[in-house]
């Protein structure tokens, strides 16, 4: 089964990602008086969806203890919400929706304690790959400019490509990674990210630019230039 934030869930979930947690404690009031979420049901949730939710949280929070907490809160909120579903993929989407809110809550709280602006990372912006003087200052040095990427479509279906992608994005420092993941993986809009993390749009654009630059270079070095 393929589950995608962007395509599958549409704007509803993306809007939902920023709702305060109070609302998500009870995503929709159960109208039926027949709570089939008996004891066994939530425990089955943990068996069926626990690993996926944990991976999901760990990729975004980058800390096992935090990810465990987020998963636990998700299941507890789901228990309160007490809904039943026709299929497991629907159930999974619902749980992921709650988890996204928990992750956003974490970032919102963290941004109150520390600034999420990071203008130090990659400030040199690949300075070593650009001509530094003369008429061509600021131009790519021909021999080490971006190379042609082969078989981009095939890469998308290759698990090892995604491992490389993950390894490269794991090298981004924490705050840049948070911004990058919200924007590029989860498709949250720039305005929403700025509101969530309390950073300015112009700083967000700088951070995204540098993150893309670093990721592009890392994937080129570790995947596209290697394959040949």
């Amino acid at each position, binding site marked *: 089964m*393929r*589950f*995608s934030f*962007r*395509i599958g869930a549409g704007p509803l979930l993306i809007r939902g990602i920023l709702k305060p947690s109070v609302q998500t404690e009870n995503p929709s009031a159960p109208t039926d008086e027949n709570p089939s*979420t008996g*004891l066994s049901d*939530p*425990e089955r949730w*943990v068996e069926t969806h*626990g*690993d*996926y*939710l*944990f*991976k*999901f949280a*760990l*990729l975004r929070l980058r800390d*096992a203890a935090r990810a*465990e907490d987020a*998963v*636990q809160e998700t*299941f*507890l909120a789901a*228990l309160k919400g007490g809904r039943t579903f026709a299929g497991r993929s629907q159930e999974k989407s619902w749980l992921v929706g709650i988890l996204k809110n928990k992750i956003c809550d974490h970032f919102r709280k963290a941004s109150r304690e520390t600034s999420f602006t990071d203008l130090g990372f990659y400030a040199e*912006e*690949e300075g070593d790959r*650009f001509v530094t003087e003369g*008429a061509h*200052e*600021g*131009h*790519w040095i*021909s021999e080490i*400019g*971006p190379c042609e*990427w082969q078989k*981009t479509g095939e890469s*998308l279906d290759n*698990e090892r490509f*995604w*491992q490389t*992608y*993950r390894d490269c994005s794991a090298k981004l420092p924490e705050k840049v990674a948070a911004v990058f993941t919200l924007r*590029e*993986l*989860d*498709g949250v809009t*720039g305005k929403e990210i700025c509101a969530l993390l309390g950073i300015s*749009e112009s700083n*967000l*654009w700088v951070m*995204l*630019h540098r993150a*893309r*630059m670093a*990721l*592009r270079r890392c*994937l080129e070095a570790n995947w596209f230039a290697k394959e040949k």
Partner: protein
Amino acid sequence: MEFLKKTTEALKTGLRTLMPSCRQVARIQSDALERPLGVSQRLGMWLHLLVCKWCRRYGRQIRFLSHAAQEHSDDLTGCVPQNLPAEARQRIKQRLRSQGK
């Protein structure tokens, strides 16, 4: 003949001042994913991309990475090697059991 030479020289310098560097174009192409560009930025970028294959590649590549991540975020999540640790699993089940009562 002299006139023609001078005009092409002037055109070249004119274009050079109008045309952003590769470094600037890298930034502009990332910004283009975030917001509508101004007229002069768009024009400068367009002129630059006409003549620079490196920047055309760069732009293609960052757009590819951006779309790929959004459409395959599930693949990325799936390749995280760690699973929910056993103790956490037990703890969460216990919490759920006590809450469910």
